[in-house]
């Protein structure tokens, strides 16, 4: 390397000497012809032309010159940047913000959306849209011609009892072929084998690596041991590797699906689950879709009753990755778009700084070009300076990206798929490196293009910074207008999201969440098989809870609103004929103790509420329905005294009252779109069990009206429960407000991230306006001086300058508003209770931006106001 440099230096010297000898010989010849020495030399030089340029074009023939010039440019750039520490600091800081934010968001987009699933041949893995019951899965698994079909339930919870305190674990039930088809191997022991999902063979479990470490202290002999889950002894057959987090990052154990056709309700009715598959070699996605179409009638024929004609008509085959990522995709892409805009603002800002500086450097550039630097060479010099800046910004940005990523991970909803695996890695490094270089070229090219077009004579003669400055300042005004426009778009987007969030959080959920603490009580499923045992347990529990200090009231329900727990009952409604092609009524069932409505503050609109008598062994089968259910199935009629029943049963339930609708599914929708109504049945022997004959559900959630904080309450509650039964875990001790806040976690995270971006955009935009106006004030000092000498008042000068800033801002805001009208349509799906073109938000943001821009130009305007005409005129 050193040798190469030495040789290159030698060549430079040789070229120098060669040209010198040329000039010398030419001059000597002229002297011989009788010219004077001085005349001859200058004539020879004139004839030769631009020595520096000749050297430059000659050197270019040597090859590899660009590398040398690049190094030269970079060295020179570094020197210039060191000489202007203030400029460098502002520019680098701006870039750190822009590039850091982009790197952090990109690492999430990459980890969640782009990175292939961690299985062999991940592009062959597909998922069916819509959920299917176990029976349907078995038909498809056995009869598909194109796919190896597997199924796993959504997260299910299991009690682990035995040595320590009972704990609640999150697991999933999977078909026996699930691991093999995905291509996942156990770290210890084995995965499930064929037919291990049939009744009698399914008392097995596979542990996650973290559960094995935490709960079984990394016992090397765990395989073959038995553990008690939900009161059932299961043999541990394997432990998965640490990085296997599927289907959810929370999954701690896997058990085989219990595929028992004899449990009709469970097998065909209630346990709907996602179905996925691996395409068999040689088959395409289209073939798989066609296959699904021909499987559908076979699936429907296998049911014991007639299913709605349109069920699964729209079910299709999509890539598994797409299915997992789902609607997170939109939010992430919108976030990526937002940080992209932020980076654009940062670029415009730095470009402006460079422009302002380029104006001051015009003499330098004119001199360089007079000395023979080509236009391209000068432009390249300027661009390499800006690339140096952006690479510096990128390097520091990368440092902050790690920090930003941890903020992001904390802000984004924890259940975002694959989020846990996201980290700043090589791919992200490459992205940041490319981004930095591109950014540098982007913001460097604008001033470079302007600067390299410098008018030589003019710049050198006037000696000042006037030549070409008008072109540059037009450019920088344009940049500021763009900046303000982009900031306007971002602030509007943030405004809309914050407004949606506010609307969401202040929606009346249909119940009164104040002062309510909830707790999930989860005895084993088998605990309730003995008649009356569960009922006695919960009655005793509620009695004891009511006697706790500060407790005003208590009740229980099988699933809280917004908790994601629901029992779905396909039903017959008396007097309601299912229209051709429509599906049977799918009703959400909430099993409640008689006091539930009162504790939750749910209004009774018609009829009567439940009483203790409704929970007795010989009681009549009664139910309450929600208002919209009444309107849907008994429109214009009094629903009291009408009947409905689960499809698989013969007894009818009588409607005795109507209650208000509430946000059962999410804060935006009362019910999920596959549900048609909601019914409430009393907790007693006639509670509808979605997996078969009537039986009260084992797991209930207590709702307790108390003035105490949930955390203080937890200890009391735990001890009350363990006094009654030592094997029953108490989990999810939380306020009802906590559930609501969890339900809006997604919108909240998007809104807070957007607010951060918008604030940054606002600050950067203000800095941009400030910079341009200050620069223009500095340029116009003389003009302002003349104006004042001619009698302009100070306020007039102030207005002149602020007006200039306001004009720029107005143009930017106008463009931004128009842009926002177009762009915010993309985020329609993220908005609630506010239109994408909400007038109030647009107006407020427009005014805000104008105020900020005016304030930013006020500071330089004050400076202009204080210009002393005499000093200003003498200035040159």
């Amino acid at each position, binding site marked *: 390397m050193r040798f190469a440099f030495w040789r290159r230096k030698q060549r430079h010297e040789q070229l120098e000497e060669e040209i010198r000898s040329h000039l010398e010989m030419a001059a*000597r010849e002229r002297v011989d012809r009788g010219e004077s020495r001085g005349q001859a030399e200058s004539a020879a030089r004139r004839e030769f*032309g631009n020595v520096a340029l000749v050297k430059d074009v000659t050197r270019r*023939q040597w090859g590899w010159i660009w590398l040398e010039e690049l190094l030269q440019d970079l060295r020179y750039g570094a020197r210039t940047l060191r000489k202007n520490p203030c400029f460098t600091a502002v520019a680098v800081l701006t870039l750190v913000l822009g590039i850091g934010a982009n790197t952090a968001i990109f690492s999430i987009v990459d980890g969640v959306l782009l990175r292939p699933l961690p299985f062999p041949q991940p592009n062959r893995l597909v998922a069916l849209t819509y959920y299917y019951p176990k029976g349907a899965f078995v038909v498809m698994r056995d009869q598909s011609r194109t796919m190896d079909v597997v199924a796993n339930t959504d997260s299910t919870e299991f009690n682990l009892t035995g040595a320590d305190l009972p704990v609640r674990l999150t697991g999933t039930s999977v078909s026996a072929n699930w691991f093999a088809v995905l291509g996942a191997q156990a770290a210890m022991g084995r995965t499930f084998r064929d037919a291990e999902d049939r009744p009698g063979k399914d008392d097995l479990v596979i542990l996650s690596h973290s559960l094995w470490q935490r709960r079984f202290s990394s016992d090397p002999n765990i395989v073959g041991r038995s553990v008690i889950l939900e009161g059932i002894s299961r043999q541990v057959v394997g432990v998965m590797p640490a990085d296997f987090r599927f289907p959810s990052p929370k999954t701690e154990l896997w058990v085989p699906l219990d595929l028992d056709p004899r449990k009709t309700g469970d097998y065909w009715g209630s346990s709907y689950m996602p179905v996925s598959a691996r395409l068999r070699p040689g088959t395409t996605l289209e073939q798989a879709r066609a296959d699904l179409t021909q499987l559908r009638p076979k699936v429907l024929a296998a049911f014991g009753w007639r299913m709605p004609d349109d069920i699964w008509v729209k079910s299709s085959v999509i890539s598994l990755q797409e299915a997992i990522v789902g609607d997170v995709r939109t939010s992430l892409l919108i976030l990526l778009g937002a940080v992209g805009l932020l980076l654009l603002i940062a670029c415009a800002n730095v470009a402006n700084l460079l422009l302002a500086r380029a104006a001051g450097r015009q003499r330098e550039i004119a001199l360089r070009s007079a000395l023979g630097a080509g236009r391209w060479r000068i432009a390249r010099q300027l661009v390499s300076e800006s690339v140096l800046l952006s690479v510096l910004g990128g390097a520091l940005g990368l440092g902050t990206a790690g920090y930003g990523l941890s903020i992001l991970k904390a802000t984004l909803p924890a259940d975002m798929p694959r989020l846990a695996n996201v980290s700043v890695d090589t791919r992200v490094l490459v992205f940041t490196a490319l981004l930095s270089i591109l950014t540098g070229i982007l913001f460097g090219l604008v001033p470079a293009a302007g600067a390299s077009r410098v008018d030589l004579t003019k710049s050198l003669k006037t000696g000042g910074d006037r030549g070409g400055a008008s072109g540059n300042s037009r450019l920088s005004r344009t940049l500021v207008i763009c900046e303000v426009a982009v900031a306007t778009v971002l602030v509007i987007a943030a405004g809309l999201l914050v407004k949606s969030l506010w609307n969401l959080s202040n929606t009346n959920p249909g119940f009164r969440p104040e002062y309510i603490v909830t707790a999930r009580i989860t005895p084993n499923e088998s605990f309730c098989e003995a008649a009356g045992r569960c009922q006695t347990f919960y009655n005793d529990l509620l009695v004891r809870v009511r006697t706790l200090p500060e407790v005003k009231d208590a009740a229980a329900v099988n699933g809280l609103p917004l908790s994601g727990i629901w029992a779905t009952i396909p039903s017959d409604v008396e007097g309601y004929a299912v229209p051709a092609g429509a599906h049977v009524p799918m009703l959400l069932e909430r099993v409640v103790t008689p006091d539930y409505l009162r504790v939750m503050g749910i209004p009774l609109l018609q009829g009567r509420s439940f009483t203790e008598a409704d929970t007795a062994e010989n009681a009549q089968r009664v139910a309450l329905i929600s208002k919209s259910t009444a309107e849907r199935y008994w429109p214009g009629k009094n629903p009291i005294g009408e009947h409905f029943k689960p499809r698989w049963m013969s007894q009818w339930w009588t409607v005795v009252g109507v209650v208000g609708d509430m946000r059962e599914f999410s804060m935006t929708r009362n019910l999920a779109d596959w549900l048609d109504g909601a019914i409430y049945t009393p907790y007693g022997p006639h509670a509808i069990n979605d997996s078969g004959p009537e039986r009260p559900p084992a797991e209930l959630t207590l709702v307790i009206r108390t003035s105490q904080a949930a955390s203080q309450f937890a200890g009391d509650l735990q001890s009350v429960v363990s006094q009654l039964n030592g094997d029953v875990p108490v989990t999810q001790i939380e306020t009802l407000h906590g559930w609501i806040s969890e339900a809006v976690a997604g919108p909240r995270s998007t809104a807070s991230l957007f607010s951060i971006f918008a604030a940054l955009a606002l600050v950067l935009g203000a800095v941009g306006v400030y910079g341009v106006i200050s620069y223009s004030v500095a340029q116009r000092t003389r003009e302002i001086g003349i104006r004042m000498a001619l009698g302009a008042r100070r306020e007039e000068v102030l207005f002149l300058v602020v007006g200039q800033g306001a004009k720029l801002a107005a143009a930017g805001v106008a463009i931004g508003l128009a842009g926002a009208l177009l762009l915010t349509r993309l985020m329609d799906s993220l908005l609630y209770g506010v239109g994408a073109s909400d007038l109030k938000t647009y107006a407020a943001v427009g005014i805000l931006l104008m105020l900020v821009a005016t304030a930013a130009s006020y500071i330089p305007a004050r400076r202009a106001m204080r210009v002393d005409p005499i000093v200003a005129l003498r200035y040159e």
Partner: protein
Amino acid sequence: MANRYQNRIELLQGTLDLLILQTLRWGAQHGYGISQAIRANSGDILQVDTGSLYPALHRLERQKWIAADWKVSENKQRVRVYRLTNAGKKHLVSERSRWAQLSDAIAGVLESAKKESEA
């Protein structure tokens, strides 16, 4: 300014190479000498720009058609002298025949045009 030189290089590229190689057939010569020789031999019609000459010399050297040595001139000055290599000689032969073809072809076209206009 830069453009002026660069256009010239492109315009003259092939021809200038041929002229340089041809000039060097009569013996080693330095850059100044080559430009003077071309000028003299063309009856002062062809003036070689230094901005084209030196890049061309260094390019030909890189292509190994000419080689350079340092010599001391009669005025006791160190000068860089170029000479034709064997590869350069072969290249010159083929370039000359190509040039002859080209100039015949152009002459042919001009000739026929002349006849037509006379007829």
